[in-house]
């Protein structure tokens, strides 16, 4: 598998503080990488740096061996998409209008959306089970519906690499599985490379083929779910006692939390 994203000795953050300090990571094509770590470990910052929202202070990020800071932004966004956690929007666009915005990286400034663009948008709405909502205004939707719409928009960009920051936080368990199943399917069938921040360690375990555990701005441990999700690693980073057994259905590690108080 070719390496899609190379992160070499990355440093960056907000103002004077460098949240990420000397982080190195490779993402291969076809990876489903789960990014986990305690609050403040730099997961969101890492994604912001990788999607050009924050400037790189030290090190470099290469996409197919090209420095992302030197790429044309629209060209970059045709390859890389991002689903953010925050799904609130100010103005009340319709669902279709929002998902169509995912086509912007493919459109020149003055270009109107073509029939093909609308078809693509519709297809992505179907994939995320939101086609029936296409004419509804975004503020009429529930948080879960909004989150699926945002995923649809990112998919409409037809990226090669998709970053997601807690894409299932507002979804009920049924929709969680549905969304992640979809992403896994796209990952397998369409070779969509996925990098996803997840708080739920078991979701990460079930769907990712690789996991990166972040702590204090660097990678604490990286590898397969079995390699990373050991009780030693988790306790060292999360500072809490857990029990790790096997999920009888998936065969992957299952992290069980141990309450301090009963």
């Amino acid at each position, binding site marked *: 598998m070719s390496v899609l994203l190379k992160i070499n000795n990355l440093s960056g953050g907000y103002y004077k503080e460098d949240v990420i300090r000397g982080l190195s990571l490779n993402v291969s094509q076809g990876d489903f990488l789960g990014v986990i770590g305690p609050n403040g470990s730099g997961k969101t910052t890492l994604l912001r740096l990788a999607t050009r929202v924050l400037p790189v202070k030290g090190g470099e990020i290469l996409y197919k061996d090209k420095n992302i800071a030197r790429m044309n932004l629209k060209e970059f966004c045709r390859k890389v998409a991002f689903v953010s956690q925050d799904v609130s929007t100010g103005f009340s666009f319709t669902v279709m209008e929002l998902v169509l915005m995912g086509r912007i*990286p493919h459109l020149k400034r003055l270009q109107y959306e073509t029939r093909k663009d609308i078809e693509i948008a519709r297809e992505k709405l179907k994939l995320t089970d939101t086609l029936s909502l296409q004419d509804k205004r975004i*503020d009429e939707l529930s948080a879960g519906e909004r989150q699926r719409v945002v995923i649809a928009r990112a998919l409409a960009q037809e990226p090669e690499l998709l970053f997601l920051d807690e894409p299932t936080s507002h979804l009920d368990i049924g929709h969680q599985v549905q969304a992640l199943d979809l992403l896994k399917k796209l990952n397998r069938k369409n070779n969509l490379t996925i990098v996803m921040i997840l708080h739920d360690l078991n979701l990460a375990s079930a769907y990712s083929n690789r996991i990166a555990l972040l702590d204090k701005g660097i990678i604490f441990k990286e590898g397969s779910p079995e390699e990373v999700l050991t009780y030693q690693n988790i306790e060292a980073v999360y500072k809490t006692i857990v029990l790790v057994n096997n999920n009888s259905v998936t065969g992957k590690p299952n992290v069980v939390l141990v309450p301090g108080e009963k």
Partner: protein
Amino acid sequence: MRLKRNLLILLLLLCIAVILGLLKGAVNIPAANLLLKDNQVIFNLRLLRIIAGVLVGSGLAVSGIALQAILRNSLAEPYLLGTSSGAGLAAVSAVILGVSRIYMPLVAFLGAALSIIIVYNLARERGVIADKSLILSGVIISVAFSSLIVFLVSLFGNEAMHEMNWWLWGSLQIYDYKLLLLVAFPVILGICVIYLFAQDLNAISIGEEEAIHLGIDTQNIKKILILITALITASLICICGIIGFVGLIVPHMMRLIVGPNHKILIPTTCLAASVFIIICDLLSRTLFAPVEIPIGVITAIIGAPVFIILLKKGKRIS
């Protein structure tokens, strides 16, 4: 389809407004006689006001749209960045210093430009403009300059006060048609450029980060758009003084009717704002003819209740 229908309706309304604006005025001229040579001057005067109205209405409304998208706040309006008080302060100072009337438009323009520069630089932090800083700086400068204006007026009395009234309430009374022509260039150009950025405005209005993820160079686009709205607003202040509510009400109203997609919003708002201003000007000229009520008063009196009604009824509310 829907856009075409909306545009046609608005175009029709505009034609009606223009015709009314030409027919009615302080002087009562029956329609049949309006085109006679004797009445040509008055006809031209009214035509000039209508042209100014279209310019002012579209310019202010589209500037309002741009600022509302950039700041992601539908309460933003063109004078937010201090242009109005800057122009007013410059004008009042000039009157006190005895500067001749012919330099007033230039003075006002410079005053507006100066306050934008100050607001912009106050809001800039490490080359990045934060939305909240921009709004805050704008408000601070507006308040500061407004108090300076009041201070000057209290010291220097009557003439300064008359001048202040013009800036406060505006007027479509055009004395210098050459100036109107001159101002038309940057305003029309500015409106076209903002329309060119419709795609970017759509993306920016849903979020700073979201826009970056869609390939929009937000920092540079914001700088360009702020500059253009400042140019449009300052140019319009030169010829018409300060006319409030248009840049706030009409965009908001149109957003409730046609939606927030800027590709549709911008052209429809231009037409709607022109109709609004022409009607307001008509009322200002005819309600108590031959006394003219300042147009800013009319836009406020009509604008405020319309706004409240729309807010309560509107399905698309941001």
